[in-house]
């Protein structure tokens, strides 16, 4: 780890803006991942593909590159009979990204939802789910990551379990937690009914260093979401937006938001004080290159 990398949180708090990477799923599918096949199988069978994607994002200007471990919790892997290989799945993903980026980018360990509703709304026992997150994050932490990225959460209880698991299993690694909000007639809520204010309170109490939102319905809505985060939190804010919602164009499904469109809106996000900016579903290295340009222009002006 180089000196500048040790200070991810210090850099954010000092006002630096850091560019993350974009979607992995679409790039994996372009390289042969079949519909319905769990993306994490690639970690064990074709890790060179992960290196290739990580390099593309690095070359596009990302300073944070994410591991292919969104579904790497044992609860999620169990759906494919892979939970026995939790450690191997997570370790292989970190090692592949590290091989590709070396110390030129932070390696961010993706941790997604467990895929089950917690009791009393579903059948998942919170203690089991917490233990599963700890197991996944211990494997990620032991492989040498720079950030734990808990993302696409909609249930605050589950998100907080994951943040606490990160604090326990990888105590020296900064934790970012982002949730997915919908615009409703009463304002922004996750599908489970969590408001931005509640998210800020719950995630901060659980120990998250960086808060924000990912996925969602396009970058314009993220501007309103970021504004609300800023109004109720002084922690660094992360925004990783989808390139809109997919639309039918002839035979193909296309994410509608082009790199230049997202970059123009990203300028507003930076004005609002968002300090970690990247992409989610439908974004590509081209989107990240456009975001990089906006961030660099801002730095030049300052």
């Amino acid at each position, binding site marked *: 780890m180089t000196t500048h990398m040790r200070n991810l949180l210090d850099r954010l708090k000092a006002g630096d803006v850091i560019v993350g990477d974009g979607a992995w799923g679409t790039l994996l*599918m372009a390289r042969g991942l079949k*519909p*319905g*096949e769990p993306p994490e199988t690639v970690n064990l069978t074709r890790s060179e593909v992960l290196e290739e994607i990580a390099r593309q994002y690095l070359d596009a200007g990302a300073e944070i590159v994410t591991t292919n471990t969104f579904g790497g919790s044992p609860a999620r892997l169990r*759906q494919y009979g892979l939970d026995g290989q939790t450690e191997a799945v997570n370790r292989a993903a970190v090692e592949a990204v590290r091989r590709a980026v070396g110390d030129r980018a932070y390696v961010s360990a993706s941790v997604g939802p467990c*895929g089950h*509703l917690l009791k*009393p*709304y*579903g059948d998942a026992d919170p203690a089991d789910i917490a233990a599963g997150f700890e197991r996944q994050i211990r494997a990620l932490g032991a492989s040498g990551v720079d950030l734990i990225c808990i993302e696409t959460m909609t249930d605050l209880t589950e998100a907080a379990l994951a943040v606490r698991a990160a604090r326990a299993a990888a105590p020296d690694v900064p934790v970012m937690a982002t949730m997915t909000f919908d615009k*409703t*007639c*009463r304002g922004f*809520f996750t*599908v*489970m*009914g969590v408001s931005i204010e509640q998210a800020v309170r719950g995630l901060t109490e659980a120990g998250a260093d960086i808060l924000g939102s990912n996925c969602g319905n396009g970058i314009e809505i993220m501007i309103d979401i970021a504004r609300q985060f800023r109004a109720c939190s002084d922690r660094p804010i992360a925004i990783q937006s989808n390139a809109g*919602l*997919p*639309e*039918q164009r002839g035979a193909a*499904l296309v994410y509608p938001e082009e790199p230049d469109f997202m970059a123009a809106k990203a300028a507003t996000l930076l004005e609002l004080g968002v300090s970690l900016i990247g992409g989610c579903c439908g974004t590509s290295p081209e989107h990240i290159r456009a975001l990089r340009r906006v961030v660099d222009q801002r730095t030049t002006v300052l």
Partner: protein
Amino acid sequence: MTVLTEIAESLQRGEDDRVGHLVRDAIEQQVPALDILNNALLAGMSVIGEQFRLREIFLPDVLLAARAMYAGLDLLKPLLARDGVPRAGRVVLGSVQGDLHDIGKNLVGIMLEGAGFEVIDLGSDVPAKRFVDAAEAHGASVIGVSALLTTTMPVMKAVVELVRARGLNGRLSVIVGGAPVSDAWAREIGADGYGYDAANAVERVRALVK
């Protein structure tokens, strides 16, 4: 407060055990099963549906209310069948092949049952053939197909094509829904309808079975 109002209000609070007890009481008091269904369970779910539409409540509250509804409905089903009570219609429901996301589909199932339909839920990861086989076996008039991932959406088209290939179109409608699905996509693949959310899906199914 009548027992029916009491059931409806208890259902809205998500009290599944209590709804079960109260429905049993009502049955013992010789309240007709159809009365309990319409004026207690469906009346309660209708309030839940409206509150959800206005986002006065959220998914967790709907799930708890639904559990209470099923606690009552399970007791009523044999009686409704015995009395030969006609239901609003029969719908086969599932998430398409390779899709393990089923919260949206479950919500549609809950709202359909709450509107008086019989729902045959095939769960998630359902291939096209199973949708159509089940619809034929159960004499359903509507198939509801849900997808949350763009990669699984082509299965919806396969369902529509299979319904046509078996000459069932006209008697068996296909309605589609899910986050990446749109009205344009539904038209493109020749589906009979698109529900943009659970409440809207119920409206569309109602229109299709008329």
